[in-house]
């Protein structure tokens, strides 16, 4: 039973870690306030925290996946895990989990390669498109947890899901608001901070 217990724990912890990472990712790319040194330092720290949470989540996620396959309480083989929706046990729920893993790995790889992509002009757009899968991955892992988790219905489990949901919702709404206010054209941040030059035409 220990393995099964660990499988559930690692799953929950992975979800919490990825929630943190997703929320921090959304939040730190929102344009907030000016560029004073303390604000810049905070922004840099948020970037670091975002990555640390993501790495933690990845470790937990791999452990969770391995433990689920190894464990005998539920019937999920390696191929069941790899190919979505083919498991004998709650296929939809487990399938969502598999998809979430794939999305998350893509997001993680894009994150790791971010620096290298600075060299190509078009790569930046593609990079963002891939990295934005984070939201899909997070959403699917929430759904997977609710549907596949045997603790669903327990008050503590519900509390975790609700808090995670609210955290990401708040972060995303801040991000969207910032986008609408500032970044509709190029140089959104700069324009927001500096009074517009006199209209010349």
């Amino acid at each position, binding site marked *: 039973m220990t393995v099964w217990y660990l499988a559930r724990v690692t799953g929950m912890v992975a979800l919490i870690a990825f929630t943190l990472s997703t929320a921090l990712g959304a939040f730190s790319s929102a344009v907030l306030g000016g560029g004073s040194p303390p604000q810049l330092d905070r922004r840099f720290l948020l970037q670091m925290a975002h990555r640390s949470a993501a790495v933690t989540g990845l470790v937990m996620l791999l452990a969770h996946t391995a433990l689920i396959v190894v464990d005998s309480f539920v019937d999920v083989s390696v191929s069941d895990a790899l190919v979505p929706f083919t498991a004998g046990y709650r296929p939809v729920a487990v399938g969502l989990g598999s998809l979430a893993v794939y999305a998350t790995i893509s997001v993680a790889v894009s994150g790791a390669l971010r620096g290298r992509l600075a060299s190509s*002009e078009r790569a930046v757009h593609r990079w963002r498109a891939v990295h934005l899968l984070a939201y899909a991955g997070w959403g699917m892992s929430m759904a997977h947890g609710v549907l596949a988790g045997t603790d669903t219905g327990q008050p503590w489990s519900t509390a975790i899901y609700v808090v995670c949901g609210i955290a990401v919702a708040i972060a995303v709404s801040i991000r969207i608001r910032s986008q609408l206010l500032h970044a509709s*054209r190029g*140089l959104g941040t*700069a324009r927001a901070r*500096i009074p517009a*030059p*006199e209209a*010349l*035409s």
Partner: protein
Amino acid sequence: MTILSEPPLAAVHIYGEPRLLAGVTEAGPVDLRRHRELHGELPLRRRSWLSAALTDVNLRGRGGADFPVAVKFDAMPSGSRVSILVNGSEGEPASRKDRVLMSRAPHLVLDGAVVVAHSLGTRRITIVVHDSAAHDTLVHALRERRDPCKITITHAQHGFVGGEIRAVINGVNGASPVPGGRRVLPVSRGVAGQPTFASNVETFAHIALLAARGTAGFARVGSTEEPGTTLVTLFGDVRHPGVAEVPTGVPLSAFFDASGDGTVLIGGYHGTWVDSTDGLVLTRARLKSSGAPFNAGVIARPFGGTCVVDEIVEVSRWLAGESIGQCGPCLFGLPAIADDLAHVAAHGGAEALQTLSRHLDVVSGRGACAHPDGSVQFVRSALNAYDHHIREHALSGACGRTPSTVLPLPRRIR
């Protein structure tokens, strides 16, 4: 996007033997029949021949960047995917030479494009034109011909920066007509992502002349380092305002009468004010080494006794407005420079001059294209050439002289 009102076609003058403008009359463009009488049959040449000829005559690009055409040509691969781009967008607002060339001698431009295409083994030619009259003339001229090429004529509206070659190519490819953040040369990746030989309309016309006459024939006229003729647009206190075809190597004083102020603007609105044209000779290399590059070939000379300061302020405002707005130093810096200059002109004192100087230093060297640098050059050289006069404005206010009106600016209709 700026919609520009189109100025009437300029007067045309020829110094010496007409070549580009051979056969040009008041009546209208040189038609195909007359063109063939003057220049002969389509002078198709092999790649190796053209490469050697371009090198021998040291043909320089006529679009403003003054790039050696042979180098550009040799960097191109051959093949049917390769593209030829003829840039007739004439982004420099004071320049008229390209639209005049296209409107009066369209077949020379078309010959040049076909010759290059043929030598590179391709049939793909795109011509980008801004001016309506030039566009219509080219379209009409194309109908007279039967070239084994696929020639697309695009009528595009761009501002100054939009005429920049990478911006033109992006526009042709369907993307935003702005220069990109990384400097990718058209020979590497241009129209449809393929290697593209992109040059100014006048350059193609010279290539046609070269192919038809051969190296010796082409080099009979003009200076020895840069043989041939060149087109120049002249404004203000000059002998023949308008567009002129001139053999290279002539002293600039040939354009002026002896009288009046020595100060002249060379190279248009990314160009250089010089306080004397003594010793200046019309080859691109010599002008560049004298610190006043020819760029797109605009020369303006204010009338003696007039005050250019207000005009210069207007042009600097216009330049600021032409910023595409992709790059911070340009978007914020150029309006600041224009404001500073206006302030200086209106009794702003020594601090106004210092602020202007500081901003000029901060803006130059930054940005994704040549627009901020060129604009800084225009203003800075004015400060040098008109040092006394501008100081007078700064310290005592308006000078009371008649304002000059020689610098043309497009009027925005929109």
